């Protein structure tokens, strides 16, 4: 037990590594601030593109989305980080993460937003357009608000996944929370910085998980 406490819950070690961990935390927040809006914007764009009546466009979107559902995000990230420089495209850690997350997260967000837009009755478009609203205003003020509300649990859930996924940036030497914790661990031969990183993620994301649980258990009953 003592051994466990000293090697996993060692406050002194964590305190000594505080500067590393804080910097890691700041970088993780930076990654979140980049990855989530980027994914949402890309997803919205793809979802809107899929509204075209052109069948082939919708099929292409489905293939695109399925491609990134099947490909592990870490494989994508490593491909961008290690592979693209061979084609003369050196993006560096942050650039690689941004590109990989844009591709991966936007596919998931697009699928969710499309389902949301589909769930808004056709009559809403017609009513808004017949009152003289432009297509853009109809989309932004009438359809999207309802669409987002209808798929809110899925949007929150996907955002939670994107936030957690930022930890894979450690693999391409981006000094985010996990990377810094691992640095501290390898210097001290003590796992406490890693436990601290896990706890920071837990504190950051627990409220989101609770919220999600409440949203998800409000499922429609069938009778």
């Amino acid at each position, binding site marked *: 037990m003592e051994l466990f406490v000293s090697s996993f819950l060692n406050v002194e070690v964590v305190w000594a590594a505080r500067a590393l961990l804080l910097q890691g935390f700041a970088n993780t927040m930076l990654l979140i601030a980049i990855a989530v809006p980027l994914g949402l914007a890309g997803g919205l764009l793809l979802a809107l593109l899929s509204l075209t009546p052109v069948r082939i466009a919708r099929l292409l979107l489905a293939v695109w989305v399925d491609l990134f559902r099947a490909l*592990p995000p870490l*494989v994508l990230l*490593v491909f961008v980080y290690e*592979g693209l420089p*061979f084609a003369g495209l050196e993006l560096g850690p942050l650039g690689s993460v941004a590109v990989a997350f844009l591709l991966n997260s936007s596919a998931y967000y697009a699928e969710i937003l499309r389902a949301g837009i589909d769930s808004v009755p056709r009559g809403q478009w017609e009513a808004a357009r017949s009152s003289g609203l432009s297509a853009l205003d109809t989309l932004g003020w009438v359809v999207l608000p309802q669409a987002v509300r209808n798929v809110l649990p899925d949007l929150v859930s996907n955002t939670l996944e994107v936030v957690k996924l930022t930890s894979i940036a*450690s693999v391409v030497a981006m000094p985010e929370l996990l990377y810094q914790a691992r640095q501290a661990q390898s210097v001290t031969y003590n796992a406490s910085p890693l436990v601290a990183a896990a706890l920071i993620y837990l504190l950051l994301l627990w409220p989101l998980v609770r919220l999600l649980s409440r949203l998800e258990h409000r499922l*429609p009953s069938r009778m």
Partner: protein
Amino acid sequence: MSGWELFLFSFLNLRVMAEYLPSIAAGFLLTVQLAALIIASGLALALLLAVLRSLGSLVLSFAIVLFVDLFRAIPPLVLIVLLYFGLPNLGFTPSGFVCTWVVLALVLAAFAEEIVWAGILSVPKGQWEAARSTGLSFFTTLRCVVLPQALRLAIAPLTNRTIAITKGTALGSVVAVSEILAQASAGVSFSSNPSPLTLGALAYLVLFGPMVLLARRIERRFAWRH
């Protein structure tokens, strides 16, 4: 070399691909084993937890919710790294394979338990009452009346979540599991050519592509009926 030739030479270099095909094939087999273990043990544990939760014991439910929240909130890679680099301090040295398996199975169990539990909750109370009023026991009712309906509702989100988490086998590359990505990455550094990564990405598509297509079909077939 023109741009197109450079692209082919770099990313679709058949000679390099042929050279690393055997090692990536070995990585593929290992990934399949890892994925199968994660899916089987994760889903079995999820079902067990959902059944335990339906017993209605407050203490048990609280413990299950705590477990679920923990494994939903902490990134799997953090947990894998923590187990792999932390446990040796206690005198255990689990392989990267075991660490990845255990963590991803627990994460899958946490997510899947929530989905199955939501399914159980959405089965109308009248189904329980009708079954119990004919003398069926709690467990027979759960197993033969409630769970078949709950799982039918849960199957689409369950397959999607299973794919998303099982793809995490690639995280094993961080803790020295020679799965597809690790083999491909090693190939890139030996050959100074990224074609092994293309091959690795293709291997992942071969593994998970059919599962994604299956998920699409299931989604259409078992869509929520309001």
